[in-house]
């Protein structure tokens, strides 16, 4: 469905910035793939190559049976109609209603208006916004805006959904809602690639058994421990050395099991700030509302001591 062979992409006048370096990978139909790595690793570049917003310096990219190097510029729009894209900053038109934002993706296909309305409404229903169709996108909360963006991406029933840091502007609870939606979209058959450096997303990926690709300075690497948290012991180990003040460390907290500890928004465990930790009760997928922030006393220099 998606295959990259020895793909490189450089930026800068002399090509001194290496965004992707000899990347080869293959993604099958229906897969859910996490693409993780620190900022600047090349995640966004990889996604852009897949939906033909960028072209590689070398290597071949095949998407949905097309060799992108041979795809004519005038054919790119038709490829894009089969690839939904979601971004960290949503990229909605704030003055338009949720429905109209989603409708844009269908209007460019020249569908009849009635069909557009129906499909846009059903896509919004799928992301839980059936009752906010007429709300102005700019007035919706961040979580709702991201759901509108997903509805726009899936309204045309694309074969592939790409999401670039989709949880970057969402708090841990909204992140869980969003993952739930992506999970549902994938269950219906859409191939999904999520680029993220959000540990919470990676933890959820581990739970669901999603495939995980690590990217570092433009190269595919085996996910390292700090990119790939699915180990309760590791979570406990991460928290244990810190001064947790009056709140007992997770591992000792009787009401929560450590394997539901969630790390939000942090690329590396070494940089972990205590306020970025949260605890979720078991089975958080169903009752995300019950997530409990973990209070950690900070040391004088602002870092965990």
């Amino acid at each position: 469905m998606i295959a990259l062979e020895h793909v490189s992409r450089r930026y800068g006048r002399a090509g001194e910035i290496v965004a992707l370096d000899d990347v080869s990978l293959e993604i099958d139909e229906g897969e859910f793939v996490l693409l993780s790595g620190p900022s600047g690793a090349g995640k966004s570049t990889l996604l852009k190559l897949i939906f033909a917003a960028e072209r590689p310096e070398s290597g071949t990219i095949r998407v949905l049976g097309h060799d992108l190097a041979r795809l004519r510029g005038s054919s790119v729009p038709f490829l894009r109609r089969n690839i939904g894209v979601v971004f960290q900053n949503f990229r909605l038109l704030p003055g338009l209603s949720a429905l109209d934002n989603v409708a844009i993706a269908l209007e460019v296909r020249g569908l009849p208006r009635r069909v557009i309305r129906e499909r846009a409404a059903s896509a919004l229903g799928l992301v839980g916004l059936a009752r906010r169709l007429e709300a102005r996108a700019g007035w919706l909360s961040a979580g709702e805006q991201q759901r509108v963006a997903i509805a726009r991406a899936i309204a045309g029933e694309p074969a592939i959904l790409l999401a670039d840091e989709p949880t970057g502007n969402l708090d841990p609870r909204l992140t869980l809602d969003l993952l739930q939606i992506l999970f549902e979209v994938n269950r219906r058959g859409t191939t999904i690639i999520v680029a993220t450096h959000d540990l919470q997303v990676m933890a959820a990926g581990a739970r669901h058994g999603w495939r995980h690709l690590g990217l570092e300075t433009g190269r595919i690497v085996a996910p390292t421990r700090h990119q790939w948290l699915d180990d309760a012991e590791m979570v406990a180990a991460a928290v244990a050395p810190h001064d947790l003040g009056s709140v007992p460390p997770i591992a000792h907290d009787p009401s929560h099991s450590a394997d539901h500890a969630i790390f939000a928004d942090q690329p590396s465990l070494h940089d972990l700030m205590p306020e970025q930790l949260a605890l979720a009760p078991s089975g958080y997928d169903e009752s995300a509302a019950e997530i409990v922030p973990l209070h950690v006393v900070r040391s004088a220099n602002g870092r965990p001591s």
Partner: protein
Amino acid sequence: MIRTLRAGTYAVRRAIGGMARRPLVLALSVSAIGVALLLGGVVFLGARAVANVSSSWGGGVHMVVYLGDDVNPERAQAIAGAIEELDAVEEVTYISPADAFARLEQSLGGRRELLEGVEHGALPSSLEVSFAGGVRDVAGVSPFVDRLRKTPGVEDVELVSDWVDRLVFLLRSLRAGAIGLALLVSLAAIYLVSVTVRLALHARRDEIAILRLVGATERYVKGHVLFDGLVQGALGAGLAAGALHLLHGWIGPDLSATMSGILGTGSFAFFVPREIVALVALGATLGVVGSWLAIEKHVDA
């Protein structure tokens, strides 16, 4: 057919709805086109008024034969008949003292009170003679003019060639000036419109990027932008026509009176309906061309 029509009205509604969400940008583009066409319209109406004056003079009076007080209308007709015999003469018009008075009154326009106390019969009757082929033939009729001067009942003959020449020169310069001004205004208008459209496109680059992201073809994107340009151009032209109409109603009569006071003829006419349609079409074209130039230059990717 009905489907196309429905799609069309939907497109217009969408374009207007889309623009209404960016009132500032809309106001900017519409008023740029409006101002451009307003300036152009003023120049056009002025130039046309001037052109009308010069053409009415070009085919107008070239010789005036002033008749004595004792000449009765019958004698005047006889003299007129004699003049009309000449090949070079196109038309002879008898102006009675009352006609002359009425004319003077009209040309004074608002300053009619100057004529208070002047008797209606105080002005001499005259014959206005126009020559075929225009002003240049005047010199050729001088022998005839000499004879006419000696005719009983003829008080004086005024050959208007001298100041007609000067007037024609003046009108020519005016016309050239108007054309130059029109050119300048058109250039300014095109510049204004393209700058504004570029600004508007800049404000819409998010929308255009999103359109491309969700798989809009370049034709669709272009059509979308050009259609907005069309609607905005037409709106701007409508505004310009309205403003011109107001302006015309406001200072048009005074201008007409002043002009006929100085030149003895001329008036500022407003656009006829067909011309208003043309103005709106021009505005729409300007909007489309401006958008097209801007999109060619600025929204590649």
